């Protein structure tokens, strides 16, 4: 016998989901649709006519060598920040989960960076990393080449990666801690009784058991790094020096909002959307296979 709760009246169900559908439509499909339209036209910022140009905007985007540079930088940024923030988030979560001395306080404190808005964090880090005023100033006095994010692109990139990872590690920490605490204590206690050391328990029991969370964090970290990096880049480097920290999302902001090239920015955001879809697809296709959902 089939046991399934259904509404007798179809319209009632529809009525319940209508608000959600409306929200998704207004805040997602509508803007995406507008962006799609702009990407194929040349839109004048103050309105008054837009011309259909087919794939011209996309052709121009892909013909630009700086754009390819921007894609590579964004991928590097995504890989580095995902690795760093997940590693640190996990490390802190494992430590807190063990219930070391004072862990209640740390558990609260470690979450805070995520509550700091990106531009505020970026402002603080800009000061910390300023070659003449920050932590490296003494070393910079000896050797000006040692640290100069205003001129050295690698330094600037390192700086934004650290700032972003600092903030995002806190986010990873919340999820990893939740996942670790969901592991039944009895499993861990049993292995402890069998004489497994702390590290052995982490690698053989805890980590395998939280792989679903791990996978989720990987997907989310990579997607977010494409979108959320904007505020940090804007405050810390403005995409410079040269174009060394011009990530895809910053370029979209600059071309669209500062440069008023709405169509070029729309085409770029469609491309960014496709890149993220492809990346996510591959992660689900190839990495999720290794994930065991209990």
């Amino acid at each position, binding site marked *: 016998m089939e046991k399934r709760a259904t509404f007798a009246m179809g319209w009632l169900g529809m009525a319940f989901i209508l608000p959600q559908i409306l929200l998704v439509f207004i805040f997602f499909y509508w803007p995406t649709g507008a962006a799609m339209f702009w990407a194929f036209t*040349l*839109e*004048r*910022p*103050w*309105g*008054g006519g837009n*011309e259909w*140009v087919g794939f011209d905007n996309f052709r*121009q985007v892909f013909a*630009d060598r*700086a754009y390819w540079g921007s894609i590579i930088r964004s991928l590097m940024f995504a890989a580095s920040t995902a690795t760093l923030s997940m590693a640190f988030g996990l490390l802190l979560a494992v430590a807190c989960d063990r219930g070391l001395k004072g862990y209640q306080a740390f558990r609260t404190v470690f979450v805070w960076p995520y509550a700091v808005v990106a531009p505020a964090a970026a402002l603080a880090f*800009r*000061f910390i990393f*300023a*070659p*003449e*005023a*920050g932590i490296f*100033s003494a070393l910079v006095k000896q050797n000006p080449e040692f640290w*100069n*994010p*205003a*001129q*050295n*692109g690698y330094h*600037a990139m390192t700086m934004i990666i650290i700032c972003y990872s600092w903030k995002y590690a806190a986010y990873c920490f919340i999820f990893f801690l939740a996942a670790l605490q969901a592991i039944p204590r009895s499993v861990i206690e049993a292995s402890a009784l069998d004489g497994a050391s702390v590290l052995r328990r982490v690698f053989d029991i805890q980590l395998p058991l939280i792989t679903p969370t791990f996978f989720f964090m990987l997907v989310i970290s990579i997607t977010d790094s494409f979108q959320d990096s904007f505020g940090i880049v804007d405050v*810390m*480097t403005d*995409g*410079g*020096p*040269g*174009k060394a920290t011009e990530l895809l999302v910053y370029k979209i902001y*600059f*071309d669209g*909002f*500062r*440069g*008023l*090239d709405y*169509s*070029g920015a729309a085409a770029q955001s469609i491309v960014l959307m496709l890149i993220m879809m492809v990346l996510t697809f591959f992660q689900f296709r190839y990495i999720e296979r290794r994930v065991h959902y209990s």
Partner: protein
Amino acid sequence: MKSKFLITLAALLMTATAQAAERVKFEMWHGLTGDLGGVVDQVCKRFNDSQSDYEIICTSQGSYDNALQNAIAAYRAKKNPTIVQIFDAGTLDLLLSEAYVPARKLMADNGYKINWDDYIPAISNYYANSKGELNSFPFNSSTAMMYWNKDAFAKIGKTEAPKTWEETFDSLKALKAAGYECPMAWNYDTWPIMEQFSAINNIPVATKGNGYQGLDTEFIVNKGKYVDVIKSLKKAYDDGLVKIKTPDTGATIVQAFANTDCQVMLSSIADHGTVSKTQKPDMKWDVAMLPTLAGVERHNSLVGGASLWALQGKSDAEYKGAAAFFNFIAQPDSALFWSTNTGYIPVTKSGFEFMKAQGFYDKAPYKGRELAIASLNASPVNENTRGIRLGGFVQIRKEMRDALTDIFANKVSVEEGLNSAVERSNVVLRKFEKTYAGKMLP
């Protein structure tokens, strides 16, 4: 007794609200913040106190960029303010749109006779259409100046600022030899060394009269004197005469100059007030006109800043208010108030004369600011000096800045850097031309 008091109070409140309700309210959005934003608020308050028919509500949008973006979004949603402040580089997009009410029409329709020739030519031409007519009201205006530390220059036996670039580099060398770590501070800003440089030395930055005669203009700063000046600047940098000062390095050029770390900087006259307020006590400094090239006759410099536009889609009463406000800020005593409280310069000849007559420029801390007007008035305005009207100018400025950063980091040679910046800028210009295909520059 108490009830009588309450009744009186209520009556008072009612008349107050009735009066307020009679006033026509209209909005102005601007991009200034901090001290400057506060002064804008005071200007608005002065206007509101000066008459009882209109009430202007001034709102800061946080930055020039935000003011522009928000005004566009609001205009598209038909919820735009009556007046919006748009910075110099945003002028062309608005000029090509149908979103504004031309300044002349607005004033004529509302019965104000404005002496348009009263505007300082270098200021009005920057914002005017190809016929020389103003479509917006120049508001906060500045130009670039050379700030120099008199104490440091005294040590190298100089009592005057250098007048040519050649002399400037010699002075920087002497300053270095005299033991100054940072003779000149620079922040990759192209405004003084490319835009102002072009006007002062009477060289075009783009074909078609710097873009005034058509959207098919091409950017040409990878040739001739531009290459030379960037090369000299790069050499000066390599010799330790010029130091990069940006927020990323820990101090802006203004901070580095005001605390005497650096002895020279090229910056807006609008920073005059900031330097006065934040300078090291006893530091003696002054401003001078930007240097020219040796043997070149000095031409007028370009105005920077923003102008006020009346946007479409408002009621006649609101436009009447806007016209009254524009008329109010054009009065000489408004100019005096504005320039006293900010570093900006008066935009009209009568405003400038009035301020001179009041003795404004005779004493510190305002002494020296008259040089900005002198710089703007250095010559009659011509094709190369009236302004720069390029589409996507914000992107072009960024391309130049990116190129300069790469040049100074030794990643590319001066020629390579400028060539690629110009090539990329021309892509921006062609796209802009296509976006406005069939549109004539007004």
